[in-house]
């Protein structure tokens, strides 16, 4: 035990000596929370719109004013010819254009019917769709005001409630994802690299011939990273509660328990990688590509899982982070108890045991 503690202390020295890595380690979650929370939003703001007003009458002016007043759009100067329009799109200067034909207001008054055209830059399809929806809503509002006296018969009135997140806080969805990602970087990548480094440097031999049991050499390497990742986890929780205002609705001990389980599964994976590889570069790249990429792709925090083709959805089930993500979402954001997530927990325990067993089996006390 005494020996074990000495080894753990040695590993802590290694970790604390590398100030830059340590800085990145804690900078990463802070940066991700900041960017995801404040910068990355699919909410449209300041989309550049060009209004081609061939009507120049009261109706077109009023609609233009409405568009200008909305935070979604920022107006671009008038272009006159069709060629200018095309050029502006091609240079990426505008995202959409609203075109009023001549006699717009006259048509509206006399025939009760008038047309406008919206041209959207659909090279970004989602933005194009959303912008078209917003413009249609503005025009629809104007139309409603024109007809404000008439009331339609036989109305179905939908009443809408937003569960768990009534103010539509956009950062809610990704916090569990960031947690999973950061834990994985710390546990899998750092652990595997720090073990392989000893191999690459040749110091592993010295450790293995010492009277200390080989398995403890590995375990002592895991301890500092376990501690670091728990610290990181607390940091993310604090940031999300105090900076982003995302509440923790469920039991915090349950959250910690489940996270420890996930951390152990990441550590076992890191151990497995370190057994399979002999150079730091390979270990890094394997853990990046083998663990990070699937985590980003298949947990559902960035890319919607349900839109993926079925084979990919099946593959996503073998990624531990996916189950952890569901658990964190349920406990932290929905306030569910253990009764709702026992199945996911069981899957995660199974995966952890599986990873741990093969990584310990593959662990060799002799170097090639």
């Amino acid at each position: 035990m005494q020996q074990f503690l000495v080894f753990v202390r040695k590993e802590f020295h290694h970790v604390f000596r590398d100030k830059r890595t340590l800085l990145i380690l804690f900078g990463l979650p802070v940066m991700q929370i900041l960017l995801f929370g404040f910068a990355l939003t699919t909410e449209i703001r300041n989309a550049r719109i060009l209004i081609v007003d061939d009507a120049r009458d009261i109706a077109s002016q009023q609609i233009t004013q409405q568009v200008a007043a909305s935070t979604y759009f920022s107006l671009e100067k008038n272009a006159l010819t069709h060629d200018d329009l095309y050029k502006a799109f091609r240079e990426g200067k505008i995202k959409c254009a609203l075109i009023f034909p001549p006699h717009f207001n006259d048509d509206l008054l006399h025939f009760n019917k008038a047309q406008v055209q919206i041209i959207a830059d659909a090279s970004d399809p989602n933005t194009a769709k959303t912008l078209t929806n917003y413009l249609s809503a503005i025009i629809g509002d104007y139309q409603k005001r024109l007809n404000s006296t008439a009331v339609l018969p036989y109305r179905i009135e939908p009443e809408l409630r937003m569960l768990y997140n009534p103010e539509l806080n956009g950062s809610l969805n990704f916090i569990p994802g960031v947690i999973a990602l950061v834990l994985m970087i710390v546990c899998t990548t750092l652990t595997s690299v720090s073990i392989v480094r000893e191999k690459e440097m040749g110091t592993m031999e010295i450790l293995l011939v010492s009277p200390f049991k080989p398995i403890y050499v590995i375990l002592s390497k895991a301890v500092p990273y376990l501690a670091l990742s728990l610290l990181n986890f607390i940091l993310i929780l604090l940031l999300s509660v105090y900076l982003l205002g995302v509440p923790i609705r469920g039991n915090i001990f349950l959250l910690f328990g489940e996270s420890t389980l996930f951390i152990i599964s990441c550590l076992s994976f890191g151990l497995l990688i370190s057994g399979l590889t002999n150079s730091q570069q390979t270990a890094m790249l394997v853990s990046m590509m083998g663990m990070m990429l699937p985590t980003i792709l298949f947990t559902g925090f960035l890319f919607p899982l349900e839109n993926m083709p079925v084979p990919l959805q099946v593959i996503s089930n073998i990624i531990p982070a996916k189950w952890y993500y569901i658990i964190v979402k349920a406990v932290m954001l929905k306030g569910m108890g253990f009764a709702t997530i026992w199945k996911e927990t069981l899957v995660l325990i199974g995966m952890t045991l599986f990873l741990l067993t093969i990584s310990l089996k593959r662990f060799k006390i002799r170097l090639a």
Partner: protein
Amino acid sequence: MRTLKFLLRKEFRQIFRNKSLLPIIFILPMIQLLIMPLAADFDVKNINLSIVDNDHSAYTSRLIAKIGSSGYFHIKGYQSSYKEALRLVEKDRADIILEIPAGFERNLIRESSQKVFLAADAINGIKGSLGSAYLSSVLSDFNDQLRIQWVQPQKFSPQATIDIATVNWFNPLLNYQFFMVPGILVILVTMVGGFIAALNIVKEKEMGTIEQINVTPVKKWQFIAGKLIPFWLIGMFDFTIGLLIARFVYGIIPLGQLGTLYLFLSVYLLALLGFGLLISTYSDNQLQAMFVAFFFIMIFILMSGLFTSVDNMPVWARWLSRMTPVTYFIDVVRMVILKGSGLADIKNQLFIELGFAVVLNGWAILNYRKTS
């Protein structure tokens, strides 16, 4: 020149000898390009719906059939109470609950108006709000159909209506992959170029072999050029493979000229490799280099407008986005491939990228010292 030739030969040998690096350089990008666009589909569809129908009338069954046929919703089940439906939401099986109160059909006809209740899981805000907007629009369509049944439509519309004609340029079918594939092409070149270049010099530092090079008469610029050129070529090669995959798998044919694309790519790769070099001159070991590179490349990719438009960002974030080289390349690739923009349209971006290349490489060369 002769020295450079020998250095290049050494670098290429080291790359091709490294059996673990090869698949990462050549196979990983292909897999990425084949899987990522399939996964990165941000269209809101496949919304799981739970229906609580307390009315069981002819109207509600017509309404439910209409919702089911709209293509956006999977009806996950008919629950007998709101509470039961909420359980499905808690377990993540349903996204939206539609509750139709008892007496829906009767009240609609007698009282001329009737409420229905929607509850959406808003943890994913976009899905919650867009999903319920879709459902509301299906409801209002259904409403219009009913109204026509009961009210004789007049020949002239009694109300002023504005018809909106929408045209989608550059991607009329709103195919999301046309948007994602060019962006992913950039990411793939960035990952391969940025990471591996960052690791390269540090590896020599860590192994101590850099000392051996330092004591030879090899000049600074020769050494750095020897490190840059192989990855520059690999980046070009990967991009070409990516373009071929885009052409034959996704059917994306660049509208603009390939020459424009490659000109920009060559400058971009210079800037990117310069960045990798800069990191490796500052780091002491590979782990450090990789973490620093990962940190910055993560910021670059997130801020580049690959997933979310730069215009939506607050002012400080837009400045940050302008200071990352990836932003301009993603912009240009999309413009050239989808809109057919020419050299004249992208000259600003090209000059900025050139600026990045000069500054980053200059900085890296200045910072690389032969004595430690």
